[in-house]
Each structure stands twice: as structure tokens, then as C-alpha cells.
């Protein structure tokens, strides 16, 4: 008979999983491409670190200011800011560590308690939690410096606030994961979420712009938010500061109640997972009646292209139209343009004393739109998945793949820019001919010049992205840095050429220079295609490994 293994306690199990995560991270660094990615992430980490530290200083100063000045009601704003960041940021960038699903560990003999603790521990292993903890620590220091006697209340409030936040974040995450397990609901959610985010941008221009009146209206609404956790956390410290200890205890009781409520709900949710809740996406049942496939419509415009390039363009078009996320990204430039125009060029034509007339606003807006629209081209093969193998087994050269992908991008660019130019012309007027033509030539230079580099980046630093998914969706860190560097160089060159026109007083000179640069960039682009085909041959293992996971 087989020997029975001794059972591990919850802490030992959590420790084992932590070790597993560490080994997964360490082993992934053996991959050269992951190493490059990590370097990219390292630089991003430095920026994030500076941001977190800067804000930590702000939270320290804010706490100090509110407590020493007797404006204890203001502390509520700081807790609300942290609460909103902690709860919403993971939905934006849930990429950190998203590839590991701890539910897969359920096949091992985990106790429910260990499973719960593990789930909760995961809540601390993301950027939003770590940043929020730093800011709460800064607030505690600020309270200790401004009013040492509130420190016990501050520590109690922070401890409960942290526990409440991490529990709620895991609860929301778990429910979202459950709802988004199906592809269609996932895509619907992503679309809804993005639209909601864009819509929020319009709240500013719609509301009264006076800062003072905004502040007073927020203060008026504050009592309505009093029963919620961030307000309760603020209430604890405010009560302790004003010697109103009953108020402070009421805050502690309220916050404790929330911790228990969220913990109970989270336990219930995790218990369902623990029992083996099935989230998989089964194939939809076949319809009873036979429906004959419609014949594909003939696309005359594509007849001008070679059959292979036409097939690629056709496929790219279908991929764009079936990718809710990509479609919304297409709507975003125009939406942002309307937003910026309403902010800076229409109702508020003077920013920093500079008149934002059509001559200045038009090229700036076009540059901004190009930046947004060019970004996906740095990871061109992101959505190909295992289909990338077809590009290497089919009798084609990679120049055809690039031609088709870049052609699709150019078509989108032309459509978006034409629409934007029309809207701008109606709203703020047409810029003077030298600026108009200089901008158009600059766009051609900017796009054609960037494409070979974007194509190269797509080959060398590919990253698979999933349709309609928010978790783990980000380009390779190196690709992002390449894009930044290239856009800074090209943007700088464009700004320089535009300035030459102003300095020399010859306003047609930039248009002439850009025309020459655009011609050179187009020539360079076509010359690069063959070279990139060779690079593709060399990088096919990198591509298939990254995309066929």
C-alpha cells in the first residue's frame, strides 16, 4: 500500500506558491527576448517609481497640511484618491503577473483557508497595491509629523483601510474574471469600459470650469459619501484629531463592518472556485438548420493588388472589424480631437498666452493623431496567434505581408485624418496653404519614415495580444521604448523644420523640405521591404515562439 504524505498547513502552502512564482519569473529570464522585455520594464519601473515617490511626497504634505491647519475634513479626499486608484488601476493595466492563474493550483490538496489566503496575498502583488501602500505610509508619516497623538488612530484606520481595499479589489477582480470568461461578454465589457472612460473626459468641459466653485460643489456632495470606506477612514483620524473619540470609534466600526462584509463575499466567491466552478468557454452548439455560406463579396479595389497582398488586406480588414478593442481605438482619435478642440481651440483659444489658431492647432493635432494611430504598428503581429505559421509555410515573401499590413494602416490613417481635417476645417477653419501642405507632407514623412522601424520592431520584439482581453495586454517593453525614441526623433525633426519656416520668414520652405523628406522616406520604405524579409527569415523562431503560445 502506498505511503500517505503528511498534510501541509496553509502558511507552508502559501510559501510554496510564492517559491513557484519566483522560479517562474527566474526561468522566464533565461529567454533572451524576455530579458530585453525586462530591461524595458526596468526603465518603466524607474518612471513609475519616481511617480509613486512624487505622489507619496504629495500625500505626506497633504496630510501634514490638513492636520496642522485643522482642516481635517480634507483627509477624506486623500483616502478617496487612494481608494479609487487601488480599485480602478488594476482594471486598466492588469498586465502585471496576469499570466499566472492561481486557480490552476486547485488540483493540489489545498485547504480552503490556504486558497483564500493565497488569493488575498495576490492582491498585494500588483502595482496599484504597492503604490497605495507607499502613499498610505507617507500619510502616516505626515500624521506623525503634524500631530503625533493621532498616530494610533491613523494606524488603525490605515490597517483597516488596507484590508478593506485588498479584499474589495480581489472580490471585484474575481467577479470580473467570472463575467469575462466568455469571449463575447469580454468584448462587450472592453467596449463599454473604453467608451465610459472616453465619456468621462467630456465631464470637465461640460461642468463649470471655476476651480473654487468645483471645490465647493464637491464639499456639498461630501455628506452623501460619508458611509463609504474612504470617508470612514478619514472620519477616524478627523475624530481623533478633534478629540471626538465617539466619532472615531464609529468610523472604526463602520470600516470593520465593510472588511467583514467584503471578506464574507470574497470567501463565498473563492469557495465557488474552490468547489470547481467551470469557466471554460465551450464551443457553441451547432444550429439545427443548415445555412449556406454566402459568397464572399468581390472587392474590385483589391483586384489592383497581387492576390497574396489582396488576401492579406482582406484578412486584416476582417480582423480589425472583429476586434472590438481595435475598433474603439479607431474611434478614439476622433473623439480626442473633438475633446481637445472644444478645450483649446474653440471655447478656450488662449493657452499660456499663445493663441491656438488653425496654423498652430492643425499640425499639433495631426501630430497627436499620428502618434496614437501609429502605436499598434510597432507590434504588427500581435493578434496573429498561431496563424503566424501560415506566413512561413505559404509560398510568399514577407515583403507581401508587410505591404498588406502597412497598406491597411495607411488606409485607416487616411480615413481618420480626412475625417479629422474635415471636422477641424468646419470647427476652427482651414490653416493657411503653407501650413496645410507642410503638415500633409510632414505626415507622409512621419509615417513612411517610421514604418520600416515599426516593422523591424514587430519582427524582433513581438508580443501576443488576446482579442477582447484586458489582462496581460501590453506590448514588449523594448518595442514601447523604440516607439518613444523614434517618435521623439521624428517629432523633433518635424518641429525643427516647421520652425525654420518661422525663422527664415519663408513659410513655404517647410512644405518644400517635408516634400523632399517624404519622397526620401517613401523610397527608403520600399527599399527596406526586402531587407525586412531577410530579417523575418532570421527571426521566425522568435515570432513563432512569442505568438504560438
Amino acid at each position, binding site marked *: 500500500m502506498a505511503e500517505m504524505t503528511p498534510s501541509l498547513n496553509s502558511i507552508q502552502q502559501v510559501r510554496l506558491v510564492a517559491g513557484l512564482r519566483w522560479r517562474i519569473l527566474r526561468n522566464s529570464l533565461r529567454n533572451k527576448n524576455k530579458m530585453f522585455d525586462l530591461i524595458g520594464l526596468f526603465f518603466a519601473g524607474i518612471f513609475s517609481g519616481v511617480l509613486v515617490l512624487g505622489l507619496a511626497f504629495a500625500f505626506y504634505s497633504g496630510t501634514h497640511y490638513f492636520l496642522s491647519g485643522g482642516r481635517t475634513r480634507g483627509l477624506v479626499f486623500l483616502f478617496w484618491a487612494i481608494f479609487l486608484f487601488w480599485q480602478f488601476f488594476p482594471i486598466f493595466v492588469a498586465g502585471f503577473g496576469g499570466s499566472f492563474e492561481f486557480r490552476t493550483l486547485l488540483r493540489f490538496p489545498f485547504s480552503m483557508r490556504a486558497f483564500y489566503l493565497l488569493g488575498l496575498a495576490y492582491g498585494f502583488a500588483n502595482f496599484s497595491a504597492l503604490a497605495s501602500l507607499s502613499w498610505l505610509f507617507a500619510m502616516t508619516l505626515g500624521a506623525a509629523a503634524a500631530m503625533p497623538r493621532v498616530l494610533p488612530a491613523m494606524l488603525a484606520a490605515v490597517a483597516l483601510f488596507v484590508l478593506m481595499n485588498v479584499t474589495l479589489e480581489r472580490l471585484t477582480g474575481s467577479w470580473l474574471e467570472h463575467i469575462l470568461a466568455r469571449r463575447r461578454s469580454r468584448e462587450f465589457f472592453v467596449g463599454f469600459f473604453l467608451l465610459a472612460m472616453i465619456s468621462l473626459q467630456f465631464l470637465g468641459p461640460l461642468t463649470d470650469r471655476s476651480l473654487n466653485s468645483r471645490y465647493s460643489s464637491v464639499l456639498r456632495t461630501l455628506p452623501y459619501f460619508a458611509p463609504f470606506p474612504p470617508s470612514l477612514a478619514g472620519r477616524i483620524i478627523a475624530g481623533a484629531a478633534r478629540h471626538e473619540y465617539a466619532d472615531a470609534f464609529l468610523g472604526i466600526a463602520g470600516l470593520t463592518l465593510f472588511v467583514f462584509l467584503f471578506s464574507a463575499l470574497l470567501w463565498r466567491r473563492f469557495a465557488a472556485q474552490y468547489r470547481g466552478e467551470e469557466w471554460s468557454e465551450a464551443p457553441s452548439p451547432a444550429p439545427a438548420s443548415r445555412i449556406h*455560406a454566402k459568397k464572399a463579396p468581390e472587392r474590385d479595389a483589391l483586384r489592383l493588388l497581387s492576390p497574396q497582398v489582396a488576401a492579406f488586406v482582406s484578412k486584416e480588414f*476582417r480582423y480589425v472589424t472583429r476586434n472590438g478593442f481595435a475598433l474603439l481605438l479607431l474611434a478614439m482619435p476622433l473623439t480626442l480631437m473633438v475633446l481637445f478642440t472644444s478645450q483649446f481651440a474653440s471655447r478656450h483659444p488662449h493657452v499660456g498666452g499663445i493663441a491656438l489658431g488653425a496654423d498652430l492647432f492643425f499640425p499639433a493635432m495631426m501630430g497627436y493623431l499620428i502618434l496614437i494611430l501609429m502605436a499598434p504598428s510597432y507590434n504588427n503581429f500581435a493578434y496573429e496567434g498561431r496563424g503566424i505559421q501560415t506566413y512561413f*509555410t*505559404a*509560398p510568399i515573401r514577407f515583403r507581401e505581408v508587410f505591404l498588406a499590413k502597412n497598406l491597411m494602416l495607411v488606409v485607416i490613417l487616411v480615413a481618420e485624418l480626412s475625417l479629422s481635417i474635415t471636422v477641424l476645417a468646419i470647427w476652427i477653419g482651414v490653416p493657411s496653404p503653407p501650413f496645410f501642405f507642410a503638415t500633409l507632407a510632414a505626415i507622409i514623412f512621419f509615417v513612411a519614415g517610421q514604418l520600416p522601424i515599426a516593422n523591424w520592431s514587430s519582427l524582433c520584439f513581438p508580443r501576443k495580444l488576446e482579442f477582447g482581453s484586458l489582462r496581460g495586454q501590453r506590448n514588449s517593453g523594448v518595442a514601447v521604448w523604440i516607439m518613444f525614441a523614434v517618435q521623439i526623433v521624428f517629432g523633433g525633426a518635424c518641429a525643427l523644420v516647421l520652425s525654420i519656416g518661422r525663422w527664415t520668414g519663408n513659410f513655404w520652405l517647410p512644405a518644400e523640405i517635408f516634400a523632399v523628406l517624404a519622397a526620401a522616406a517613401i523610397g527608403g520604405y520600399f527599399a527596406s521591404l526586402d531587407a525586412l524579409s531577410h530579417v523575418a527569415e532570421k527571426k*521566425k523562431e522568435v515570432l*513563432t515562439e512569442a505568438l504560438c503560445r
Partner: protein
Amino acid sequence: MLEFCCQLALAHTMPDFAICTEKLTRRFGNLIAVDHMDLQVAAGQFFGFLGPNGAGKSTTIKMLTGLLAPTSGSIKLLNIDFAANPVEAKRQIGVVPEGMGLFERLTAAEYLHFVGQMYGLDRNATQRRSEELLEFMQLADRPKTIIADYSHGMQKKLALAAAVIHGPRILFLDEPFEGVDALASRTLKALLSKMTERGVTIFLTSHVMEIVERLCSHVAIIDKGCLVAQGSLEELRAGISGETGSKTTLEQIFLSIVGESGAARPQLEELSWLK
């Protein structure tokens, strides 16, 4: 039925070897996945490529189909040097790669259209063949379903349909029956048998010995990157038992050949903690 799958094969004069490799080698750092492999597959053969896990089967098939560059050595498909003329070589072959290589956001018909055009078929031919293939594979009743929503078996059938739409002269199949139910498996076998009858060369890897034994006329066995046996099933049987016409199964042949190299490994009768 599916005449186009075999047209090309008949239209060309058959070369001696459909697949011929010379000293084909692939290294991954210090690991030699495929070591100086000389492989010959005659035109029209149904060829089974066997080996234990990690022996180099997938690496070999990836090199033969252009998915992986060899470190050294040469590949000729129908006398076309793959390195010198990859596009022409690829035009002759159909591939069901590991993981199937499907574009999951297309419908089955759209995917077949795409692949057909990649191989230079005109629109009408692509349309006609797509419809015929979808009917044959019993995939025609879900025209609006995207491939991502297909079951594994349906995806396998579609991958095979895409591999044959241009009428290849050599078909490379990496584990084509893995995860396929008995009904779908019968459909696939019927198509493959028909194709070999008409002169198409099929190169297949599988772990299921019964399938290889039933379908393949010739077999090669690879172990630790080296070709350790190659020939017809009869030749291999004779090599093992010393007499022709013996009833040795392919599994016995495989174990006796690959088992030899594993003979030095300790043979445990039972595991100590399961006594």
C-alpha cells in the same frame, strides 16, 4: 470527390524522391536536436515519422516546412532546393503544423479563401474548393462561427482542409489525429488514403502506432536526433525478426529499436513508495 487535391500530383512527372535531406542538422545552443539526418521519402509514399518524446520529430518537420532554419545540411522537396528556392518549394507542399496555425478570428470559409489566395488560386477556384472542402469535412453548417469557437476536432479538420486546398504534392501532418474523435478521424483517413492513391506524398508524425501501422507504407524512426531506422514496414519487420512475413507489430518494432538506446537506463519494476 476532392479531385483537385490530387490533380497537381498527377500533372507532374514524379521525381525519385519527394523529400530528400542531406546531413540535416539543427542545434539549439549545446543541444543537437537533429543530427546529420539523411532522409529519403519516395514520391507517393505514405510515410510515418516516429520517435519518442524529444527525439527531434517536430524540429525535423518544422525544418522541412520552412518554419525553422536548419543549422546545416540541405533539404530538397521534389528536387527543389529549399534554401535556394523556398517559395517554389512551399508551393508544392501543404502543412498541418503543430498547433494548426489557424487564424482564429476568421470563419472557416474566410480562412480557406485566405489560404487559397496565398497559394495563388483564383477567386472562383478558391470559392469552389472551399465549399467542397467544408462539405466534405462537415463544417459547412456553421458559416458564421469563427474558428475560435470551433472544437479541437473541428479545428483539426479545418487545418487539413486548408493544407490540401491548393492540391499539394507533399502533405506534412504533425500529429493530425491528436484530439480527433473516431468520426472525424475516419473522414481524415479517407481523404488521406485517397490522396496517396493519386500520388500525393504524405509525411506524418504520430504517437499512435496503430494509426501509423494502418496508414503508412513506409516508416522512419528518429531517436536523440538521429535516424535509427528507415524502410517499409516489411523491411523493418524483417530487420527485427530476421525473417520476412513475420507478424511483429509496429509497436514491437519501435520498442525494440528505441528501447535498445534506452537499455542502459535503470529498469524499475515498481516505485518504492507505491509498494
